[in-house]
């Protein structure tokens, strides 16, 4: 056992001391912080109202209605104090094209200073009939801006049409009252206070962390095996340790590095979210915008499920990576041979995405019992919708059973592989190794 401990210690220390580990550990939280601060900084930049000209060739009252409506649009949904637009109305019946051209020429001119135009909303004379209008602007690439504009204008078009058809304007106004869907996740029969956006984000982030950690650290197990094999260090080691002890120490050593890194990342994320008001304040953002961000809360149970499945999944996949490494004589060869294993990891991530829409469908149920995919599917399902304990347990059992089988096979391949040089084995030879080892 002391010897296994020595192997664990070596794997751990030599990795934690490496430059790559330090860089990626620091870079992770930095990226996270950037992701967190980005919306705040963007919001700050965008607080100036969009300067929009409503160019009205529709005639009648409609153009003015649109302009008035845009003036009342607020950027901030909580206090309704920051106007979204600065609106000017230009009637342009008859000479539309010339006016439009001259306005378009003003869009995005920096030297115009604060008066620079952001865009021109053109209402044709046919707009009411066809529902078509035109927006020319510098910000057409922003889905947010475009959705907001369409949301603001649509009811006016519909209202105008209804009024034309003889419907009482009061009825139209009443019918167009705001409809809003707020979401809150229910878990174990209790409201969690977490919005749908937030739990989606959590699932998303979690599966990416799993994917990255499995891939990065799985490969590290593999290259560590290749290093020992190609340098023949393994010969000295197996003369005093069994191959299984060596494999165990290696996998546990790398796993603890991975866990350390994940906890540093998770810890940073927790600090960032707990003190998000202060952090945002330091960047000059209003507390309100921060509370609007979809920030997930992670319950301890969620953390246990996540880490538990990470460990199981890591053991599962790193055993395979070790087996692949033991078959190869060089890093290049190993890089080529690891594709099948990596495909499974990638497939796990893809499948998880396809399940986000329906976390409790038949597909989801089946996949959480497949050891290859359960490490991705089950924690994500757990975060998205209530998962009965029985099903969670079943998934864990399936995972453990798969783990035992895979480790058994991988350890046998490893045992033969690390001392076999020359050509890479064919499948038939591998089967023989497993049988005779």
């Amino acid at each position, binding site marked *: 056992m*002391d*010897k296994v*401990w*020595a*192997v664990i*210690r*070596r794997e751990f*220390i*030599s990795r934690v001391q*490496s430059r790559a580990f330090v860089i990626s550990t620091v870079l992770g939280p930095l990226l996270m912080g950037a992701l967190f601060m980005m919306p705040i900084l963007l919001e700050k930049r965008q607080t100036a109202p969009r300067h929009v000209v409503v160019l009205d060739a529709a005639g009648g009252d409609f153009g003015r209605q649109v302009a008035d409506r845009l003036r009342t649009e607020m950027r901030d949904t909580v206090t309704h104090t920051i106007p979204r637009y600065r609106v000017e109305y230009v009637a342009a019946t008859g000479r539309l094209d010339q006016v439009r051209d001259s306005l378009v020429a003003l869009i995005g001119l920096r030297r115009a200073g604060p008066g620079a135009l952001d865009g021109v909303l053109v209402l044709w004379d046919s707009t009411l009939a066809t529902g078509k209008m035109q927006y020319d602007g510098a910000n057409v690439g922003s889905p947010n801006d475009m959705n907001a504009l369409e949301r603001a204008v649509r009811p006016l078009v519909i209202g105008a049409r209804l009024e034309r058809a003889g419907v009482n304007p009061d009825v139209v106004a009443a019918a167009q009252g705001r409809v809003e869907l707020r979401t809150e996740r229910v878990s174990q029969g209790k409201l969690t206070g977490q919005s749908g956006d937030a739990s989606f984000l959590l699932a998303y982030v979690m599966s990416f962390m799993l994917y990255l950690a499995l891939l990065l650290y799985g490969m590290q197990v593999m290259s560590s095996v290749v*290093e*020992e094999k*190609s*340098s*023949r*260090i393994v*010969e*000295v*080691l*197996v*003369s*005093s*340790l*069994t191959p299984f002890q060596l494999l165990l120490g290696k996998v546990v050593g790398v796993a603890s590095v991975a866990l350390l890194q994940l906890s540093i990342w998770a810890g940073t994320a927790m600090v960032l979210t707990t003190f998000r008001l202060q952090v945002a304040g330091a960047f000059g953002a209003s507390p309100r915008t921060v509370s609007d961000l979809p920030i997930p809360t992670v319950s301890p149970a969620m953390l246990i499920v996540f880490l538990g499945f990470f460990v199981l999944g890591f053991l599962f996949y790193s055993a395979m990576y070790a087996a692949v490494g033991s078959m190869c004589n060089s890093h290049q060869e190993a890089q080529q041979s690891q594709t099948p294993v990596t495909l499974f990891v990638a497939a796990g991530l893809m499948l998880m995405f396809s399940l986000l829409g329906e976390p409790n469908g038949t597909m989801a149920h089946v996949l959480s019992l497949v050891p290859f995919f359960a490490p991705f599917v089950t924690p994500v399902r757990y975060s998205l919708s209530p998962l009965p304990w029985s099903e969670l347990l079943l998934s864990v059992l399936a995972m453990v059973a798969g783990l035992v089988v895979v480790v058994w096979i991988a350890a046998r391949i490893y*045992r*033969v592989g690390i*001392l*076999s*040089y*020359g050509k890479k084995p064919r499948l038939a030879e591998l089967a023989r*190794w497993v049988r*005779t*080892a």
Partner: protein
Amino acid sequence: MAEAILRLDDVVKRFAGHTAVQDLSMEVPAGGIFGLLGPNGAGKTTTIRMIMNVIMPDAGRITLFGGPASRSLAARVGFLPEERGLYKKMRVLDHLVFFGQVKGLTARAARARSREWLDRLGLADWGSHKVEDLSKGMQQKVQFISALLHEPELLVLDEPFSGLDPVNSQVMKDVVVDLARQGRTVLFSTHIMEQAERMCDRIVIISRGRKVVDGPIGDVKRDFGGSYVALAFGGDGARAAPVLADRSLVAQVDDYGASAEARLAEGAGANQLLARLVSAGVGLTRFEVVEPSLHSIFIAKVGPEAATAPAREELIHG
């Protein structure tokens, strides 16, 4: 002969296509230096791997310290494999401590002994450097230290001196001799006969997996028989050639140009040869009746076969 610390009985190892070791039996007595000699591809490394429990023999028995070879004996054996391998990214001291621990030392003891050894082999300043920063010779010393850090009773060295310059070679040789003096047993393989001849108490020569010579080095030479003459010429070796080619006088000659070793033909005396050489006008700088060198014995025993060494080994765990 002292009690055997290591014994091989009819050990066989086959690989796909050929037999690497065939019915090999040998005994390594406790204490002293034991040489396992043979040409490239003779099965030395395979034999050592079996002794070290890295691979299993297909047949036969290996007895270590009176019992079957097993990993539980690892603490009593030190092993320097033929291939020079270290973790390149590790610090030298950490590396040594790791190997010490794997062999059963505590981290503290391993650290203290590593420092001593690094000091002794002139690497005291390199402990905190990464292995990859060291020269090849230094790395070889580090690996050598890692093999003997836990003070094993038996030290198995596979080609320990290959690739070393004379200075480093000398340092390692001194350590090996010193260990043997302390009562430890050193088994090393080599195909450099001069070294084996000077260091070993006992040797085994194997060729193509079979044992061809076995015994204390003095006995081996005596049993080989024949009278040998070592010659050195003062620059006109060409004049000696016809004399040495006379098969009634010289049975065999190993000609190095400026020197030669000749085995006298049966019935011929050293005086006859000397007289002939002098009358041929050869300027001799050395003429000495000697025991056969290990080199001559080696060439005589394995010469014709060694030229056709089998293909490289392909290890398959049995």
